[in-house]
């Protein structure tokens, strides 16, 4: 997979999402339960707003001194006998990882969930090199077994699948013979994956945060698959986006708390680990440790008007409150990064050519901004994108004309009045039972999912009513 998960037109993808009642139901109930859990976990920490400010300050401080902290990280990893590689592009990153695999003659790879490895298309490169690569996160494993179905949520990637779908994938691909209960399906996956861990030559993980003064990486998980990936194979390759770094364990602790509470409503997830190359005398863990630091477009965001997007800690809380995500689901974004943060960073990493519609997939209600634990002004960044997209004349000619006309009408009292006078008779052909049921693109987009009332008969009725009562308002 790459950044792009679906090459179809945005409209087709959203229509697909809106027409999938199971997915919409799953997304809305996940949103509701995660929201409640998040609120409880946040409240238990007391002054949540102050914790958010602290999270924001830590992220901003680190980004402002990113070269310093990455340099310190590199020195400390080297001191411990590990290797660090700085990749400017996704090709450099994947090539470096492939070179290690080839040099080691590694055939079996276990992997724990990592979005940046998707971004650099690493799976594809390694499988082309003849390796067996297994995703060990349960959700990701389900998607892999289902012919690499794309993820639909940052934290719960297989949210769009129900238990019977999972049962039939396991039956078909792995010879599973049990029922569709989540316990049995998970127990079966445990047995299969155990064997994979024990056989693996190389383990590949992402990295929630690198800890600069320790020369180690931090993994935040609930399943423990990341830890097994970093404990058993002799080689461990960790891959991180270059901005995912903290100065010390103290900052890490604050961000991990914000992350766990915002992502899954837990105070801390089951496993939080800080790991690096094996120390002398230790018998497991990697004898050979590599950290790949990936730029792949991030440095163009650094110092730009979108700089704050780099503060993201990938908790997914913004998805869990977004009304648009609730209706269209994760696949509609066509990116491994869905939801509000996806709509901000996907166009930055992948360009407007493929992703110019995403910043418009928002109601600008600002729920995402209010919830973000590191205070990224998401809705403002979406507006910024929209301004740039319009300025670059990337919106369709028809849409531009429609907007221009609407703008003229709405800003002129005379024209608005005239339009209203004709609105009711003109809309009759398009209406049924007082509701508009047909219309041009702009109208169609609206009536696909909501009602649009037919304009009232009496033109400008409120003004007319007010005029009649002139002087009466204050009496």
């Amino acid at each position, binding site marked *: 997979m790459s950044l792009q998960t679906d090459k179809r037109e945005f409209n087709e993808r959203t229509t697909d999402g809106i027409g999938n009642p199971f997915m919409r139901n799953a997304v809305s109930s996940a949103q509701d339960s995660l929201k409640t859990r998040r609120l409880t976990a946040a409240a238990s920490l007391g002054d949540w707003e102050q914790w958010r400010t602290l999270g924001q300050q830590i992220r901003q401080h680190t980004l402002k001194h990113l*070269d310093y902290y990455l340099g310190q990280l590199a020195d400390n990893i080297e001191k411990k006998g590990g290797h660090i590689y*700085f990749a400017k592009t996704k090709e450099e990153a994947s090539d470096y990882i492939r070179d290690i695999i080839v040099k080691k003659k590694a055939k079996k790879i276990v992997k724990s969930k990592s979005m940046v490895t998707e971004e650099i298309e690493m799976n594809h490169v390694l499988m082309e090199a003849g390796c067996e690569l297994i995703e060990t996160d349960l959700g990701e494993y389900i998607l892999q077994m289902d012919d690499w179905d794309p993820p639909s949520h940052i934290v719960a990637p297989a949210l769009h699948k129900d238990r019977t779908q999972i049962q039939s994938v396991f039956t078909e691909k792995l010879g599973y013979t049990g029922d569709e209960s989540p316990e049995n399906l998970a127990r079966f996956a445990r047995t299969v994956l155990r064997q994979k861990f024990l056989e693996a030559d190389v383990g590949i993980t992402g990295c929630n945060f690198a800890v600069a003064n320790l020369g180690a990486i931090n993994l935040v998980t609930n399943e423990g698959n990341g830890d097994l990936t970093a404990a058993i194979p002799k080689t461990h390759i960790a891959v991180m986006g270059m901005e995912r770094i903290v100065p010390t364990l103290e900052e890490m602790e604050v961000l991990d708390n914000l992350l766990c509470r915002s992502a899954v409503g837990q105070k*801390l*997830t089951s496993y939080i*680990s800080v790991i690096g190359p094996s120390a002398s005398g230790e018998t497991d863990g990697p004898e050979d440790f590599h950290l790949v630091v990936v730029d792949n477009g991030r440095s163009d965001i650094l110092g730009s008007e979108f700089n704050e997007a780099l503060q993201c800690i990938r908790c997914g809380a913004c998805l869990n409150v977004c009304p648009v995500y609730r209706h269209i689901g994760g696949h509609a974004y066509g990116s491994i990064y869905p939801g509000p943060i996806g709509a901000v960073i996907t166009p930055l990493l992948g360009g407007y050519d493929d992703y110019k519609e995403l910043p418009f997939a928002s109601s600008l209600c600002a729920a995402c901004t209010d919830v973000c634990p590191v205070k990224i002004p998401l809705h403002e960044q979406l507006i910024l994108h929209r301004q740039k997209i319009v300025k670059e004349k990337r919106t369709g000619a028809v849409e531009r004309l429609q907007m221009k006309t609407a703008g003229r009408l709405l800003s002129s009292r005379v024209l608005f009045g005239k339009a209203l006078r004709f609105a009711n008779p003109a809309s009759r052909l398009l209406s049924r039972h007082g509701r508009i049921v047909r219309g041009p693109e702009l109208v169609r987009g609206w009536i696909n999912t909501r009602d649009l009332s037919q304009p009232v008969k009496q033109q400008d009725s409120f003004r007319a009513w007010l005029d009649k009562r002139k002087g009466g308002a204050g009496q």
Partner: protein
Amino acid sequence: MTVSGKDSFLNHIASKLGRERIYDVQRPDLQALAPDSYGSLTADELIEMLKEQCFFIHTQVIESNAEILQQTLDDLVAANGGGSVITSGDARFAEYGLEFANASVWEEAAGREQNILRSEAANTAIVFADYALAESGTVVVESRPDQGRALHFLPAHYIAVIEKKRIMLRSTRAAADLNRRIQAGELLGSSINFISGPSNSADIEMKLVVGVHGPLRAAYVLI
């Protein structure tokens, strides 16, 4: 293939930030910024908090003491269905005079493969916690030659013995102490694990399933 492309990469970042590279940074003092939501709690209150939190993370808490520790652990191992036990080589096992039938120990001399196989084969792992965090129901353990990483993840059941004096309020304190040790130049284990209960996942229809990769069941014994 060690530090590769570092300078040009970091120079590029500095130029995007509109300045030259920097080699010295004063990090903000977090202790001054972090709100303290709990005030000061007594040792007993911390224990109560730990117990309450463990209820939510599906982890059994048993109060014991040095005299009956062996019995408590034997009972727990039996409750897990008996079978083989693996312990870390922590000196505290000898200090408390603990011995288990059908047991193996994680030890440097056994080497990677043997230690991993022993852990995989064991029904219950028993370790001592370095720190315990009341607020989140967490034990903190550091890897050492006598306590590998896989020891905490491969056996089917997990028991952590917590000495009450090691219980602290929350992760802030543990992180600060660990960082103090790093800054003092102490070499820590290559893996520091914060473990809060058994392995779990909600990947299938958001339904919580325990024991997806790591232990199926976890218990803490307080002494």
